[in-house]
């Protein structure tokens, strides 16, 4: 599956995922609590610098992912121009763009397996409270495995709809797709049970 990780390997890939996530958490809290325009301007330039550092390809891919924010940036700036509070508008947009850019940066430089490792560590204390960690991990893996399977069934359903009708299928194939999901769930549950189930493994 296509992931959102960076097309080029950067030095940030070698940093521990937990460290990056912790730093992101601190950065987001700081960004939210400071309202100084110069501070936010400096942070934005620093973030931009982080995007430029790994090279041109990384920069263009990273910046393209921030473009989805433009309607909000435009909306806030126009609004604050209209009420004559440009400085406040600039703080809000810079804060928003920097926060999203930093979060995307962590996503781009952290492999899925490293992220999973952090989830495993963070959830393991809950195992004592009765959370079935193995069930959670199997569940996550199952979703990743079943998305292409279910996606293909969706394609087939819309193809067969188009063979029967000139109109687009739209929501009419959602129900058969949901039925496919329920049927697959039955079969997967059976297969899990046939392989020893999830409860017994936990007890061992």
């Amino acid at each position: 599956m296509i992931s959102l990780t960076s097309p080029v390997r950067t030095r940030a890939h070698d940093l521990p995922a937990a460290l990056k996530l912790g730093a992101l958490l601190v950065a987001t809290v700081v960004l939210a609590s400071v309202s100084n325009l110069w501070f936010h301007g400096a942070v934005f330039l620093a973030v931009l610098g982080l995007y430029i550092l790994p090279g041109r390809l990384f920069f263009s891919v990273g910046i393209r992912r921030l473009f989805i924010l433009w309607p909000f940036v435009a909306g806030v700036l126009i609004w604050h121009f209209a009420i004559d509070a440009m400085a406040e508008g600039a703080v809000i947009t810079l804060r928003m763009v920097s926060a999203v850019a930093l979060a995307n940066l962590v996503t781009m430089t952290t492999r899925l397996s490293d992220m999973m490792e952090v989830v495993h560590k963070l959830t393991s204390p809950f195992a004592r409270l009765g959370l079935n960690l193995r069930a959670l991990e199997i569940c996550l893996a199952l979703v990743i495995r079943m998305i292409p399977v279910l996606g293909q069934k969706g394609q087939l359903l819309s193809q067969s709809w188009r063979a029967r009708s000139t109109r687009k299928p739209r929501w009419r194939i959602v129900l058969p797709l949901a039925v496919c999901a329920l049927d697959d769930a039955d079969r997967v549950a059976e297969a899990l049970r046939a392989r020893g189930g999830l409860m017994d493994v936990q007890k061992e």
Partner: protein
Amino acid sequence: MEKTVANVALFAALIAVLGIVPNITLGFGVPITAQSLGIMLCGTILGARRGAMAVLVFLLLVALGLPLLSGGRGGLGVFVGPTSGFLFGWVAAAFVTGLIVQKWRQAPLTLVASVASIIGGIGVLYAFGIVGMSVVLGKSLSEATLLVVAFIPGDIAKAIIAGLLTASLARARPASLLSRQGV
């Protein structure tokens, strides 16, 4: 246990598929996808607890970096952006929708599931979404409400579709409607 895990996983996958298969976009002029329809169906079909778990698993995978949101979005950025409130609201939306379908059994299922989807999938969801938007964009709650009000008619249509789909599933295969299986 295995059944719950499998249902949660498959419905999390269903939400993803409804967001990425381009043929399932609903056409109302506005580019809206069926992904929020998937959230409503998680509640109406799986029930409160399992529905919310499916949404939670889906969001966890989005946070881990998979581009599963409509338009191929994903990663940690979407959880701090202006629409992040809606993502957090999805969990509560599926839970409330499912809870209403589980508890309210006196009326026809089409009506129950539609009303449940409107209360959970619009009322609860927009409450979270509007608060999130007002925080990130530094706007008052009423200003943030104005920004999202244009999306409500499309979502009402989706809620009614969710009601119709749930009722036809119950007619065709009553055993599949886990929200009404006495759990």
